[in-house]
C-alpha cells in the first residue's frame, strides 16, 4: 500500500486534493499533514497551494517544512499543484515590492510573471473578439499541449482540458523541463517534469476525468 502525503502548511484547499486521491486510489494511505516526520516517511509527496505566493513561501519557511519538502523533491515521486509548481522555480513577480520579485525554491530555471507582463506586445493580452483584455485571473478549462512523453500523461489525450485559476504564469527557461504548454494570450509553462518531479499549474483535483487520471498515474508512477 502506497502512502501519499498532501503537505499542509495552512495554505489552500487541501481537502479537495486528498479527496480526489482517495477516490482514485482507495487502497492508498492518504494523509494531510504538516509534520516533518510524516513527509519523510511517505512514499509520495504532493505539494498543493493556492492564494498569494508571498504568504505561501513565508509559510513554507516559517513551518520548517522546507528541508523536508526539498528532500522529497530530490528523491520521491513528487507532485506540485498550482503554487506548488511555481514555488519550484526561481522567483515570482507576485507581491514583489517596486518590481522586486519573491525568491522561491529555485529547483527549476524560470520565473512566474503576471499575464500582462509576459509579452512586450501590448496587443498580446487583448481578445480580438471583444477588443478588451482577456480576463484575469485565467479561470476555467484550458488546453494543455503535452511537450514530452511522460508516465503522468498516460491515457490523457494531447490538448485535453484542465481547470486553471491563476493570475501569474510560469516562463520556464529550460525547454527540457517543460512537460506541457498552455496558451492564454501568451504561452506559459503549464506542466513541468524532471526525474521524480512532476508539477502542474492547473488543478487536477478539479479537472474531472482527465484530472483524476493524472492523479491515478501519479499514484502508480515508478521512478
Amino acid at each position, binding site marked *: 500500500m502506497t502512502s501519499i502525503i498532501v503537505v499542509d502548511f495552512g495554505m489552500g484547499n487541501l481537502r479537495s486534493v486528498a479527496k480526489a486521491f482517495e477516490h482514485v486510489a482507495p487502497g492508498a494511505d492518504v494523509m494531510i499533514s504538516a509534520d516533518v516526520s510524516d513527509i519523510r516517511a511517505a512514499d509520495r509527496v504532493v505539494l498543493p497551494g493556492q492564494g498569494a505566493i508571498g504568504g505561501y513561501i513565508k509559510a513554507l519557511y516559517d513551518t520548517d517544512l522546507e528541508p523536508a519538502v526539498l528532500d522529497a523533491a530530490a528523491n520521491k515521486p513528487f507532485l506540485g499543484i498550482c503554487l506548488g509548481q511555481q514555488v519550484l522555480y526561481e522567483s515570482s513577480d507576485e507581491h514583489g515590492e517596486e518590481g522586486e520579485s519573491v525568491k522561491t525554491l529555485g529547483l527549476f530555471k524560470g520565473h512566474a510573471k503576471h499575464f500582462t507582463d509576459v509579452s512586450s506586445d501590448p496587443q498580446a493580452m487583448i481578445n480580438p473578439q471583444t477588443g478588451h483584455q482577456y480576463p484575469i485571473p485565467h*479561470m476555467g478549462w484550458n488546453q494543455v499541449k503535452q511537450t514530452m512523453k511522460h508516465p503522468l500523461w498516460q491515457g490523457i489525450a494531447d490538448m485535453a482540458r484542465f481547470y*486553471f485559476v491563476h493570475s501569474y504564469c510560469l516562463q520556464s527557461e529550460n525547454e527540457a523541463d517543460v512537460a506541457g504548454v498552455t496558451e492564454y494570450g501568451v504561452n506559459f509553462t503549464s506542466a513541468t517534469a524532471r526525474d521524480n518531479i512532476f508539477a502542474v499549474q492547473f488543478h487536477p483535483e478539479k479537472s474531472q476525468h482527465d484530472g483524476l487520471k493524472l492523479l491515478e498515474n501519479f499514484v502508480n508512477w515508478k521512478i
Partner: protein
Amino acid sequence: MGLAKRIIPCLDVRDGRVVKGVQFVDIRDAGNPVEVAARYDEQGADEITFLDITASSDNRDTILHVVEEVASTVFIPLTVGGGIRVLDDVRRMLNAGADKVGINTAAVFNPEFVKQASGHFGSQAIVVSIDARQVEAGDKPRWEIFTHGGRRGTGLDALQWAKKMADYGAGEILLTSMDRDGTRDGFDLALTRAVCDTVDVPVIASGGVGNLDHLVDGVSKGHADAVLAASIFHFGDYTVQQAKQKMHDAGIEVRITE
C-alpha cells in the same frame, strides 16, 4: 483554441432540497442536490454553483453537508453562495469542499469584507454576486444594485460597483439581472456586456435563461466568460451536453466531454 466558455448549472438549495421558483414565488421541488449535482457533472457541467436560500437559521448547516457530500464524488469546481457574512462563513464553506464562495448582500453593506476575504483566502476563492436592475433606459442606460431578492434599491451604480468589487479582490463576478431572473426571456445583454467591458475579472452571466440560444447570446453578444442557468436544466428541458453542442455549433469554444 484556448480557454473554454463555461456552462454553470445553479442549484438553489432550501432546507437541503433543490428548489426553483419564478422570482421567488411558486417554488417547485427539483430534487436532492447531491443527485442533481452528480447528474450535471456527468453531463459535462464546467462548474456547479449552490445558492443556499434556507430561511431558518436552524438549518444553516444543511448546505455544509450537501457540499461535503458533493465534493467527495464530483471533481469539478464548486461555488457556494447565500448568507455569507463573516470570514468564518467563508472558511466553513471552503473546508466543506467549496472552491469559491459567493458574497452578495454582505458586500453591499460592508465592502471591506470582500477585501478581507480575498486577502485571507485569495481572490480565486471569492466571487462577488451582483443583483442589478435597470433604472434608466434610452441611449445611456443605467443599472443599480438591488438587495433582498431584487426588492430593495441601494442607489449604487452597477458598473461602478462591479469595478470596485474587482478592485477589492473579487476573483470573479456573478452578474444577475433581477429584471430577467425567472422570466425565461434571456439575459439582459446590454447589462452583461457593459459589465464585461468594464471589469478585467471573469464575469458569469445569470438571470433569464429560457433556451439554449440565450446561452449563446450571453457569450457572443454579452461577452460573458461563463453562463449560469437553473430551470432549463432542472426540469429536463435541456441537458448540459445539448447546451455545449449548441454553443459549439455557434462557434464558441467549449469543453466537450465524452
